[in-house]
């Protein structure tokens, strides 16, 4: 069955509203004020924010669209997925370049707000996002900045996390949703509500089969496209405290820690359908 729901006035189920409230609190708590003017870590955001602000105001479309029960179920499943590990392959097409850039690596997610992306080809690099703070490390050096106090930056950086933790209210707050499903495969399309974000991102598409997330495609307004293809997705992972800290540490680890050891999978976790 194919089902498309866009911009329809519909009441959000009470259970969903309750979850939304919980998630809002979590998001609020994860914000970090960070040092004021003298701490200039957020300068990394200037590039993109300036572009967005130049594109217009920050007025947002109200979240009045309804959601299908299938999407709710999918998100509920993601919410119960626990710690996730997946191999990714990214293909990026950038207008400045004549060819595409391809990268590969491993991605970790621990609910509600820990994300680590380790790239193994070309070169080694890593990105860790946690509590409104992002830390990058590659051969060119390290960069870190706070984005938690900035809604626009947040909506650019932690989209994947919002989906992986099954935060449907959070998604609806930021995006107009379109969900299609044929019973086996599904496609979730996100279009930014904020005009400022929409000046940068045209659409984000998540697709999958059954309960498994397979791709994430981000199309920018300048026709730059990145496609993340996930494979070997494992959920309900159990990480030792030591592994957890190594994987999600915001601090600058040495080169040997870029690729952490493979953690064990929780034997009691249900298999994917």
């Amino acid at each position: 069955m194919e089902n498309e729901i866009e911009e329809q006035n519909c009441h959000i189920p009470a259970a969903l509203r309750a979850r939304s409230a919980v998630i809002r609190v979590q998001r609020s708590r994860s914000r970090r004020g960070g040092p004021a003017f003298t701490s200039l870590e957020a300068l990394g955001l200037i590039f993109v924010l300036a572009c967005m602000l130049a594109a217009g105001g920050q007025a947002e479309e109200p979240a009045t669209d309804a959601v299908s029960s299938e999407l709710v179920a999918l998100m509920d499943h993601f919410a119960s997925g626990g710690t996730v590990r997946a191999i990714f392959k990214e293909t990026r097409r950038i207008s400045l370049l004549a060819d595409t850039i391809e990268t590969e690596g491993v991605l970790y997610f621990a609910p509600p707000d820990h994300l680590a992306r380790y790239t193994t080809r070309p070169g080694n690099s890593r990105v860790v996002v946690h509590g409104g703070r992002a830390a990058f490390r590659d051969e060119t050096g390290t960069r870190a900045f706070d984005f938690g106090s900035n809604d626009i930056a947040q909506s650019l950086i932690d989209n994947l996390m919002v989906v992986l933790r099954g935060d449907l209210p959070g998604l609806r707050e930021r995006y107009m949703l379109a969900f299609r499903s044929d019973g086996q495969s599904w496609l979730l399309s996100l279009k930014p509500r904020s005009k400022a974000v929409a000046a940068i991102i045209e659409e984000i598409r998540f697709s999958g089969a059954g309960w498994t997330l397979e791709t994430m495609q981000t199309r920018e307004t300048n026709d730059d496209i990145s496609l993340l293809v996930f494979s070997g997705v494992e959920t309900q992972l159990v990480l030792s405290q030591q592994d957890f800290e190594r994987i999600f540490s915001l601090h600058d680890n040495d080169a040997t820690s870029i690729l952490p050891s493979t953690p064990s999978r929780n034997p009691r976790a249900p298999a994917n359908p």
Partner: protein
Amino acid sequence: MNDRGIRWLTIALLVLLGSYCIARLEFTNSITHFIPSRAEAELVALSLELVESPLARRMALSIEGGPESAEVAVQLADALRMHPEVAWVETGLDESMLRGFYDLYFERRLYLTSDHPETEIPRLLKPQALEARAEQLRRRLAQPDAMLFSRTAHADPMGLFERILNRIQTFQPTATSSRTEPTDFAIIQLGLRSSPFDSLRQAQLLGDIEAEFQKLAAVHPTELRLDQNGVNRFAVAAERSIRDDVNLISAISISVVCALFLLVFRSLRQLLVAVLAPLGGFAFAMAVAATSGEPVHGITLGFGFVLIGVAIDYPIHLMNHYGLSVTDSTPREAIIRIRKSLLLSGLTTTLAFSSLAVSNFPGLAEMGSFGAAGVPVALGLTMLCLPAFLSGPTTATPVQRALSTGLARLVEWLSERRKIAIAILMAYTAIAATGLPRLHWEDDPATLMTVDPVLLAESERVRRRVADFDGGRFVVGIASDSEAALILNTRIHQRLRGVVAAGELDGVGSLHAFIWPESLQRANLAAFRATPQLGARIEQAFSRSGFRPGAFKAFEAAISNPSAPPLRIEDIAASPLARVLDSLVELENRWAIVTLLRGVHSGSAITTALGGLEDVHYVDQKEIISEVYKGYRRSTTLMVTVGSLVVLFVLLVRYQSFSRALLAFLPAALGAMCTFGLFGLFSVAVNVASAVSLLVVLGMGVDYGIFAVDCSTRAGSQGATLSSLLVSCVTSVFVFGVLALSEQPVLRAIGLTTGVGVMLALTLAPIALALARPRVPK
């Protein structure tokens, strides 16, 4: 005029003088009053102007304890924006500030590329360097954060904007990225409308901040902590501590002095009469200062209270001699009996203060003039007006009689055993001789104030998070206009970069990170334009890394036709980044530009590096103030010595006898030396306040000596004189000596020096008297 008329006239005069002072007197707290040379005074004045500038008029608040800290910080910031004492509030880099960075710098990236455009820009544009840059850009575009700069890469393939941002990031405190720092904290910075030293307003603000925070934090389940940093906190804490000390000490002093007067004179009226004379002297000295038109320093006024302590001796002598005089004697007759001693005592004390009046420290000179004007007036009031207040019949109290008789017997006993008196003198001399060489002068300004260690630790925690620059050490350059200041700042920055590279300095916070002189900016653009076939070079180098042909046409267009003029101070002033201009201070007809320093390992390395740069100073406030205190202390000690010699000369003239003059001088000189000798022996450090307090010891000690020697030939009045000295000494000890109980080192130094010195001088008075008595044939 009858006594009643004199009484009313005296009170009316005092009221008139007081009213005049209140109406005319202006106060100052400038430390330049206490700086000797003009050059040093200018540097300190500049440093102090900076202390009063917007650079210091700020506070930083840190809220930590949980993820709610950011939310509470935002609410607290909103509340503080409404506060009348708060000029501005910042809680982080909001969109307007980020936009401000972009607007100011992206279009001007070509102007702000290099400090050495003639050499560095051609090097950056060499084919090999361009190819390396192209590879680097491609690697960056492969990173997940590529979206953050891919939009601007076509107009900035060289990453010039990022260079500017990296430079600006030198302002970032190093500790925020430390593993040991907690991460859940939020910072608020705010600007103050008033001086941070305006303790009244600042105490109100600090109270309001605390109350508002408690109100906001109470609704959250986790325990949040508010840490604060600001000069105002220390100013308010110091003022509160001194006030508490003074309140307690005043209460003790007043109670004990009242009890003493009740015990000795059986009358509090006598106390009120006794303070009239020194109060009159104080009011007159203040009126003279007010008439000069110059503002009077607060410390001078404080010194005025010392004057009260010295001048209260005169009424006590009068009242004691009058009380112990024979029946039917009048107060004026009592004055006549002791007038020579009073006049000589007043003259020597005035001379001692006058010696201070010629000091090359304006503040010390002012204090000397103040004393020199006040003492004669207090003496005049004692001799002319006070008898009118004592006109009633009086009889000596039993305590007066007991003291007089007992002390007369003591003198009698000592004069019969001169060897004992001489042995005591030798013992005092030995203490002075052995202790003085061990005396330790403490000139470190930090030791003159007690700072609450908890407050200091809290302040340090916030400072590490906000900007870990050293608050007391910085480099300042002076120039005639703002462009010249920026040119000078570039040179300062270049020199300091060398010091950082040498490991003698951890980092600098310079306005150079934000703005360069226009000439340097234009030189940058010219260096780009001077590169032949730059477009073709970039095309060739970048195409090898897979970039499309013509991808960077926007960069070429920006070089040939920049869309913004060079960055000016006015541009920053009109932007959300205006606060960075706080380090550029407009003074009278000149501009000061301040470079903040982080982790100074060698002040001399900085001074050496800045050598040859005109009007550039490395300011170490602690070192400067320490030098100032040292000079101040030396000058005071010298002036006290000169004053002592002048007093000795006057005594020689008066007594026409070296031995009698020496004996009159003995309590003052030996008392003062023995006091410092004891401090040396017991390792009590002395400071500038101790040196000034020596004047009190000198003034009162000379009084004791003169009265002792003068009465040595009048057997009947020796007991009365010594009991007067005893009451006077105990009064002084309880007026000043109890300051030794204070927690504040300055007050403690005054109290200890005065208390010990005056008591030692008193113990020497009977010895001087005994030795001055004519020898009785056996």
